[in-house]
């Protein structure tokens, strides 16, 4: 399996919550904990802000996986929005499975601001799982393998 996708470096879009998981990622950085650079983190105020549209747009735009992170159940800074994120995530994953997207490509991880190591481990694990699955390459028909959305092409031009 792995040989089949040799040289494949997955792109994973990670959504983090401002109060817990983003700080966990920050902590991982400050503590010099290493995790694969394949994940591109986007900070939201809360995992409850995660509209499933964001995940679909990421996959349609060329991402190989989507990581959704938030505060542990019971610890949401907006009381119970992470439960909403959980219900959406479970429905999203079922729907995507019907579209032929493997469940391993969409993952929900809870990480408190103190859990830099746990978040780094979860990222590393997910990157390896997606690497084995291979590229998702949700590309448009007959347009020379370009990304589906032209504005995504423009964004890809901007250097990091």
């Amino acid at each position, binding site marked *: 399996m792995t040989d089949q996708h040799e040289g494949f470096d997955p792109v994973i879009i990670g959504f983090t919550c401002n109060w817990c998981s983003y700080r966990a990622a920050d902590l991982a950085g400050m503590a010099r904990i290493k995790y694969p650079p394949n994940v591109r983190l986007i900070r939201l105020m809360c995992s409850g802000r995660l*509209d*499933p*549209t964001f*995940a*679909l*747009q990421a*996959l*349609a735009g060329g991402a190989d996986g989507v990581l959704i992170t938030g505060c542990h*159940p019971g610890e949401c800074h907006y009381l*119970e929005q992470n*439960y*909403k994120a*959980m*219900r*959406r995530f*479970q*429905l*999203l994953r*079922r*729907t995507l499975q*019907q*579209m*032929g*997207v493997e469940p391993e490509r969409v993952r929900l991880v809870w990480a408190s601001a103190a859990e830099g190591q746990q978040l780094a481990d979860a990222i590393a694990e997910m990157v390896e799982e997606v690497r084995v699955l291979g590229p998702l390459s*949700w*590309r*448009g*028909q*007959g347009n020379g393998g370009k990304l*589906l959305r032209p504005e995504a092409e423009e964004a890809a031009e901007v250097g990091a």
Partner: protein
Amino acid sequence: MSDKPKFAMYWAASCGGCEIAVLNIGEKILDVDANFDVVFWPVAMDAKYKDVEAMADESITLTFFNGGIRNSENEALAKLLRRKSKILVSFGSCACEGCIPGLANFSSPREVFDAAYATVSTDNPDGTRPAVRVTVPEGDLEIPEFYPVLKTLDQVVPVDYYMPGCPPESHQIAAVIDLVIAALKGEAELPPPGATIGAGDSTVCDECPRTRNIKKIKSFTRIQDLVSVDPELCLLEQGIPCNGPATRSGCGALCPKVGAQCIGCYGAADGVVDFGARLMTAFASVIDSDDPDDIDRILDTLPDPAGQFYRFSLAGSLLRAAKPAWMASEESVA
């Protein structure tokens, strides 16, 4: 031929319901005849593609194009009518977002052909399948090429206006025709290009008279499995999968008013990027549980979420098609 403005209507991958809806505008059809020359309308009159090809570019004032782009003939006609038309309206759910024919985007072309040519109801002992070119004693035959992924009209050509609905409501069609006639006389202004016409901009819930509480549910139920449906209460809050929260208004909430769930035929409301994503949020919000296993158990009562959410909008959604259809399209390109 008179110097009246010219009107055309074409059907690509569609059922013909849009044409019925146009004829269903009643005596208003006489206004169409009084104000327009109908130059091309395969379901209503005899006209050949070569007649359209012979017309000057932009010589047809108004074209209603219904149906999705399923094959090479649909695509060629979309491009031809785009060139010949001043105003091209993406008419009905199929042209706007794929509709029922777009559900084939869940499957590979092989599965689609198997369903059409190899089930028990089909008498096909030789297992014949359509081919683009076939040689018979009388000569070579050619038929349009079947595309692995059905496309919406605006994925193939630029479109001036969108008119949603499966089919668009007749009174909405009549209002649009009135508007175009008034605009041609200089008495009204056409909406900005790219606008959705003949529909509201809010959701079906906004037009629905049922009461919404913040009630939560422990399971989803098919409407036909219920002994009785509360006539006043929101259907979704009774566990009936109702697509109203994401669906564009304009129909007057016809289905929920008579006790049937909204199936989403008017497509995405203003501001909704992906119809299914909006419904995922709406459905998730009524689930009464904070426990992952319990949520899974509740979701088991919604056996086909993708079919529920993308019944009309798969081809126009962010992902457009499921993986088997995309993989077949990659092969056909390669």
